[in-house]
């Protein structure tokens, strides 16, 4: 296949994610406005951060009046999973120029990672860069456009649609396959449990504590299995 065809197939393979991705951006836009962001700030956040879950977490903490440092730290911890994606996708990017690598890094999210790695494993001949750029373009543009839609139309969508529920469902679709063995199952169970238990924790450190507890618990189980 040509580069052009691989780019187009990247765009096409991304289409099934749009029914979750566009509302995701939309919900982020609405939430940001409600928290006192200007329209420009809300859209800029999606352009620059491009991590919906971290944005929602940050917006929620801002609304509760958390210190800026805690807000940033929470957003970074929510995005900690991109480090894993970065490591897993890096071998596929090895032939890219340094400049393209730096560009491609910005578009590493759950969906671009999942789609790209699936395709790379399926077909060795797919042009890595063209396919990745196709996937990234579709997902990035639809997410940012969703945010702009939320900014423009947010107050006109009735609450009855409960669009914001698409967000945990999207993450559920990613969570379930990420649980592959005992350590990952323990990491998920502990992360989820601590997040619920830590709802009232001071300074809204809940997500940070939950994520780190989950990883630590999985690490211990993994270590314990390895030494058995």
């Amino acid at each position: 296949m040509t580069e052009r065809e691989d780019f187009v197939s990247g765009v096409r393979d991304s289409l099934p994610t749009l029914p979750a991705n566009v509302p995701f951006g939309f919900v982020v836009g609405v939430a940001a406005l409600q928290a006192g962001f200007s329209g420009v700030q809300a859209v800029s956040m999606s352009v620059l951060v491009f991590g919906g879950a971290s944005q929602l977490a940050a917006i929620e903490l801002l609304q509760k009046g958390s210190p800026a440092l805690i807000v940033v730290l929470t957003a970074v911890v929510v995005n900690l999973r991109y480090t894993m994606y970065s490591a897993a996708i890096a071998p596929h990017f090895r032939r890219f120029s340094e400049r393209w690598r730096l560009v491609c890094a910005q578009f590493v999210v759950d969906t671009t990672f999942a789609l790209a790695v699936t395709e790379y494993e399926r077909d060795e001949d797919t042009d890595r860069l063209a396919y990745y750029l196709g996937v990234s373009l579709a997902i990035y543009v639809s997410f940012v456009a969703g945010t702009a839609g939320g900014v423009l139309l947010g107050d006109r969508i009735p609450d009855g649609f409960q669009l914001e529920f698409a967000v945990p469902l999207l993450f559920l679709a990613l969570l379930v396959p990420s649980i592959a063995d005992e350590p990952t199952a323990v990491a998920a169970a502990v992360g989820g449990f601590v997040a619920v238990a830590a709802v009232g924790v001071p300074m809204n450190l809940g997500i940070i504590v939950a994520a780190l507890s989950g990883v630590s618990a999985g690490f211990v189980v993994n270590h314990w299995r390895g030494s058995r």
Partner: protein
Amino acid sequence: MTPAAGLGSVRLWLVVVGAAVGSYVLRVSFITLFGRVDEVPPRVKTTLSLVPPAVLAALVVPELVLADGALALTLGNDRLIAGAVAAVVAWRTEDMLPTVVVGMAVLYALALVP
């Protein structure tokens, strides 16, 4: 807007830029490191594979089991039921679209039940 709206706006920009820079560093980490190191050490890889389940569960579980900040493990909690059905779909299909569509459909259907 509060009287400190100007200052509030600076605070928002700080958060946006801080979160953007922090996230980019995470994303670019191994992508640029690769080539300098030949292989990500297996132990690092295993530990990294724990991060998505821990973080995703920390984001999803409270959305399903809490209602207005209180634990709601009952059949009256529509989101819990819809999430449970969606989890089964996710497990069987490993596909985003059916998971989200079925989850939303169950939520809407339950809203019609008096």
